[in-house]
């Protein structure tokens, strides 16, 4: 059996380059073997720069897959050890953390869907703080990138959450009586935690695409970043898009870029999505029900999907999709200090009573 070679049309080359190459008879990489850029330039009519670029792309793509390890096939055993060693980002609700495994997972894209007011932005703010606190307190000692498309990022609210988080860390430190903890506490000031969040505001989908495009370079220069939040992804795409096919292409392309970023930089990407009404097709129950927005194709894009919804007066988090965790629904609440667990027997426990009051259906997200 002949060792057939990879066709040139399967490389990420510009369409007109591919045309010129095939018109000149170059069909597989075998045809390009041993060719210098100058020769290629003469045979195909491409400029010298373009010829070099073509040969580079082909060589790089080839080399990437011949070398062992890296992006070329990792043993599941190594990946298991890595997965087990990577912590998650805590949400401060133990139930939600347990539902997700160990908090919002790193190396994956998590989608939070929900109606307005259910707490999507609260989760985002909470995570942006939680990722920064030192490891001894359950955090990742990292930084966060917060991309805001709706203007729902309110600094005062963030400060409340930071204050409550710092108090939480102080409690832990007091219990542990450890020098190390006291040291770490010193750096936990409101200012410090505010600077750990890189904030960007986008007004339309073009700006959003530009930021996502520039993110990999940013992440390379800021290795401490462990969380990227996009709140919300739906907003710029819900209106002004007549061509649904184009919207699907753009959204799925963004999704794949984010999935790649999450895996490559070992960060967590959290996106928020709205809900939209879907009319039931015939042959089912009548009426309409709420589904996450942005369409069916988008729905497959995120690795983890959590649907936040109401059950009567109670906020619930439903883990709808996850590769490793079972489908579960847990209750949670939003307090002045952020996301917290529901305490089933008594709503007001001694520890939390003084400064935390449950916040009912305010339009906070």
């Amino acid at each position, binding site marked *: 059996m002949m060792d057939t070679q990879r066709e040139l049309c399967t490389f990420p080359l510009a369409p007109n380059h591919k045309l010129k190459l095939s018109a000149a008879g170059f069909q597989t990489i075998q045809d390009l073997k041993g060719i210098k850029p100058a020769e290629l330039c003469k045979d195909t009519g491409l400029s010298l720069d373009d010829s070099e670029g073509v040969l580079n792309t082909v060589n790089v793509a080839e080399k990437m897959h011949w070398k062992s390890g890296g992006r070329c096939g990792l043993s*599941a055993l190594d990946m298991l050890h890595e997965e087990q060693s990577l912590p998650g980002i805590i949400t401060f609700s133990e139930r939600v953390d347990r539902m997700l495994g160990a908090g919002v997972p790193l190396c994956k894209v998590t989608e939070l869907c929900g109606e307005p007011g259910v707490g999507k932005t609260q989760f985002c703010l909470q995570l942006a703080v939680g990722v920064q606190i030192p490891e001894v307190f359950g955090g990742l000692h990292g930084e966060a990138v917060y991309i805001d498309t709706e203007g729902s990022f309110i600094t005062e609210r963030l400060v409340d959450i930071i204050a409550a988080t710092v108090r939480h860390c102080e409690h832990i430190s007091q219990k542990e009586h450890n020098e190390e903890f006291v040291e770490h506490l010193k750096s936990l000031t409101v200012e410090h935690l505010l600077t750990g969040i890189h904030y960007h505001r986008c007004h339309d989908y073009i700006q959003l695409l530009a930021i996502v495009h520039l993110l990999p370079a940013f992440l390379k220069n800021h290795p401490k970043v462990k969380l990227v939040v996009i709140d919300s992804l739906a907003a710029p795409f819900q209106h002004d898009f007549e061509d649904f096919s184009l919207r699907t292409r753009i959204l799925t392309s963004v*999704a794949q870029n984010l999935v790649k970023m999450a895996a490559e930089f070992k960060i967590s990407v959290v996106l928020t999505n709205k809900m939209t009404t879907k009319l039931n097709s015939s042959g089912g129950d009548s009426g309409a029900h709420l589904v996450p927005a942005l369409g*069916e194709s988008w*729905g497959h894009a995120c690795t983890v999907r959590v649907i936040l919804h109401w059950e009567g007066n109670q906020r619930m988090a*439903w883990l709808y999709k996850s590769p490793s965790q*079972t489908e*579960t629904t847990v209750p949670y609440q939003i307090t002045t200090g952020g996301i917290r667990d529901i305490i089933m027997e008594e709503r007001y426990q001694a520890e939390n009573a003084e400064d935390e009051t449950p916040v009912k259906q305010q339009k906070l997200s």
Partner: protein
Amino acid sequence: MALLKAGLCTALNNTVLENLRSVGIKTTLDFITKDLEAVAQQASVPYKDLLAIRRVILAQYSGFPLNGAELYDNGVLTMAILSTGCTSIDELLDGGLYTAEVTEVAGSIAAGKTQMCFTSAASVICKTKQNVIFVDTCGSFSAERISIILEENGESEPEQFLSQVRCFTAFDVYELIGALETIRHNKQRQMDPFFESLKLLIVDNVASVIYPILGGPQSDGQSLITIIGQKLKILAVEFSLAVLITNNLVSSEWGGTLSASLGRVWSHVPHTRLVILPHGNKHTAETPERETRREMMIVKSSRGPTNKCCNFIIASSRLSSVR
């Protein structure tokens, strides 16, 4: 394959190559389709030499004819049926995943496609002791989950089996093609023992890398779909692998029926297509470790009748049949 290069055979030296180029013959295709007598005159190359070159080109570049009886003996030797780890699905598939075939599982969000991939992988590595490659395009690979599946099925040391699974990441269509080419190259060269015992290739999920290029004004989306389909089938047939791919379920053009996505061109690709029928689960209470029931239907088969169904459960341990 296409360009004529000196040294292809003794008759094809640099001078002859130049002469041929001067009359517009650059590729093997150009050479084959021209009338050799005319070429001999125009390019001043001896007819005998041209005949010799033609013979070498035909021998090297055309498909190799295989005799039916030999192919049959070979097929019987190399064919294997791999259990998916769930008896009801195995029954539906008339035994399980067949080697030399591409089996597609289509389902809506959270239907259980990835869980089926994990369960099949776990079944292959511990029952047959062969190797599995998992090509992950959507970030869904979880070694922990495979480890739990192995544990709950009685393997006390799941870690010893995990080295039989390798994960390739491929987040766009070119990376996917690159990954498939790498696998093909390694199987051909036969230097890495891992690829010698490779039996199952999983791609989860094919649609993720195709959606960004599908539907535009250019035809590159359709051609890349054709190429990916072709490469998957070539891997299955030439190396006797079972190929398991996942796809999404979308509403067809005028609503109503759900069908596998990626369109008409892709619909021809798999040998067998399974659909996990849509479920309408609504959960209200906190109930960990709950089993979720699904129904699976075989909608396309190159081996037999279709439209048969089976039921299965996604449990914490794996996909299992309904009792």
